[in-house]
């Protein structure tokens, strides 16, 4: 079905609380140039640009792709802007891939970014829409109760969340692009960190980052000739369900299960735990690792936390999750999903550097957003199908 799509170039900025050295265009540009360099291509080689980010209010620029057209060499080309809440970085990658898979373009540049420091990430807090029927306690106030439900149902021990945070923060030390490099990280340090929304501690939460991620995607013939090994896209999937309805399962959402089943089917994956070598999974609060392990079918319901507890999700475990340090270590919101997709591709290209998983052949990139209701995933492989 369709053309085969390969990832031939990947670029990331250094993620930081504030990239005070760059404009918004400068941020997207840094990632885009690195992706072009990786692919050994120039602007003129790119046929179309697909850009994604989270709400425009972070930067106070409406539809910033209009202003960014010049910086991304998009003038005279098609340019699309995707926004699917937190999953947007993943969805953006998928839209870009579909332009190749549909046979419309030869090479597509896709970029996702956020420059949250422009608003000190405070946008949502500065104005409150009238007539909101609910009491709002921030993002953590929404997700922490879901975590509590997970803990209650699975009877997971309290330290699991801290264990995830410890592992991801250790991994981040091996990733030069990661925002948070906490050299003296320890379980004790995490336990001692400030409680935000119990059971979520400060060091179990994602930071707010500036940064961008970019990829160059190419059709089969061009990807085969790329200077560095491509990551072949074996499957892509997106699923959405409504935020609130009677009886909605919010901890282990159906949309996530359906999305995983769809992407596995496309990629010929029968047993994800066995067939996938490494996964980059969107974990903004530590406890979401075990929750997603179950949602993704890596563990039985109620058993996800055991993977973390037994070290299976660590760099040297049999199912490494987030070798890059994950969203817990770098979180330019609109780009966070694309970083997952790109890191999965880096792994199968053998280009992940110090956090490379030896022999990684098949990898999953995962993103979610909204009230755990938007999902996007892709499977990439070192081997051309």
């Amino acid at each position, binding site marked *: 079905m369709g053309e085969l799509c390969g990832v031939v170039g990947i670029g990331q900025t250094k993620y930081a609380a504030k990239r005070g050295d760059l404009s918004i265009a400068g941020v997207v540009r840094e990632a885009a140039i690195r992706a072009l360099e990786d692919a050994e291509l120039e602007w003129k080689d790119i046929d179309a640009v697909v850009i994604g980010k989270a709400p425009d209010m972070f930067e106070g620029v409406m539809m910033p792709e*209009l202003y960014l*057209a010049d910086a991304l060499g998009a*003038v005279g080309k098609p340019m*699309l802007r995707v926004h699917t809440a937190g999953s947007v970085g993943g969805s953006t990658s998928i839209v870009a891939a579909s332009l190749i898979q549909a046979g419309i373009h030869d090479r597509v540049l896709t970029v996702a970014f956020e420059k949250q420091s422009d608003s000190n990430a405070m946008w949502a807090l500065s104005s409150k829409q009238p007539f909101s029927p609910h009491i709002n306690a921030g993002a953590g106030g929404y997700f922490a109760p879901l975590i509590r439900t997970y803990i209650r149902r699975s009877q997971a021990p309290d330290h699991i969340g801290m264990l995830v945070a410890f592992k991801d923060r250790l991994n981040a030390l091996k990733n030069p692009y990661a925002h948070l490099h906490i050299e003296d990280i320890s379980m004790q340090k995490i336990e001692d960190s400030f409680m935000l929304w119990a059971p979520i501690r400060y060091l179990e939460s994602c930071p707010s980052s500036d940064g961008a991620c970019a990829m160059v995607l190419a059709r089969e013939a061009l990807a085969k000739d790329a200077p560095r090994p491509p990551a072949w896209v074996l499957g892509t999937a997106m699923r959405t369900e409504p935020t609130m309805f009677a009886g909605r399962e919010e901890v282990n959402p159906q949309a996530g299960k359906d999305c995983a089943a769809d992407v596995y089917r496309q990629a010929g994956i029968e047993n994800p735990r066995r067939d996938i070598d490494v996964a980059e999974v969107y974990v903004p609060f530590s406890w979401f690792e075990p929750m997603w392990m179950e949602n993704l079918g890596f563990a039985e319901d109620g058993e996800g936390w055991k993977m973390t507890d037994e070290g299976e999700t660590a760099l040297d475990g049999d199912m490494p999750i987030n070798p890059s340090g994950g969203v817990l270590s770098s979180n330019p919101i609109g780009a966070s999903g694309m970083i997952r997709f790109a890191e999965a591709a880096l792994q199968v290209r053998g280009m992940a550097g110090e956090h490379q998983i030896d022999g990684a052949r098949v990898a999953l990139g995962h993103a979610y957003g909204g009230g755990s209701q938007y999902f996007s995933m892709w499977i990439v492989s070192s081997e051309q199908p």
Partner: protein
Amino acid sequence: MREVAIVSFAQAPNVRDAGAKNEVELLMPVAHAALERAGLTLQEIGFTCSGSSDYLAGAPFSFVMAIDALGAWPPISESHVEMDGAWALYEAWVKIQHGAADSALVYGFGKSSSGEIRDVLSLQLDPYYVAPLWPDSISLAALQARALLESSRYSEKDLAEVAVRSRRNARSNPNAQLAGDVDPAALLAEPYLVSPLRKHDCPPISDGVAAVVLAAGDLARRICQRPAWIRGIDHRIEPHSLGVRDLTRSPSTELAAEKAGVQQGPIDLAELHAPFTHQELILRDALGLRDDVELNPSGGALAANPVMVAGLTRIGEAASRISAGSAQRAVAHATSGPCLQQNLVCVLEGE
């Protein structure tokens, strides 16, 4: 390329202020009407894609609640562009080309009445050099209009005649806001709003929703008596800074038209997303439309301009006329950004 057609189109009446109805309440009947006309349920649809803007709504993640209108259970394969619904249609078309879906529901929604749309659109501008000065959307269009008028290709009377035709055509469009018979001389006697533009040169402020259903090949033929086949669709963008562009031309429209194959056959009618009278003239030239082409039979964006919807509506209006048999080959156009920065061109044909 797979054959893909528009098999159904629905829209809400465009109004100055939809009042008590929020986006979900506006969208629900329209989305369901589009599905019903196609004889499909949401669960039979392969892909759903929408277009809208948070800044229009004045709240982040404004598209998330819109999902509530659809009945997205079991979960659906779905995406969203922060653009006019016309680009959502493009994304859906790509998905069908890929073979990942055989049908798609596409919708756009926007309540321009919530904020001061002239100021809201200022935030589309360069955030360092231009947005801090708050030039409003009508002023920018006026700069473009003067450049066109002084190029000697068109006069203020030509602009007024675009408005006259728009309102005349809109008389037969029950969803239009501005319709009627007006005299160009009377329009020209009105004062300037932002010179050289008068009120009639500018779009009304509109709340609106539109939805279309796309289907591929035999499915389209089965569910629609006369599908409007998408024979070509393309979109292009220009540099952002107004000061580096030739505002009297639309090179991105020219390029998109060439890629979409506009000139590969005779065009019966065109639905152009020109919120301002002079922009219709620029677009007509860019598309190379002959004088015998029926222009904006719906009245176009001058008769109703729901931001984030009006481009998709143009495609839907053109498709409806093909499905009704009153046109054989049509071009539909959508625009985005200040002074026609980004343009999409779609060529539609009957069997």
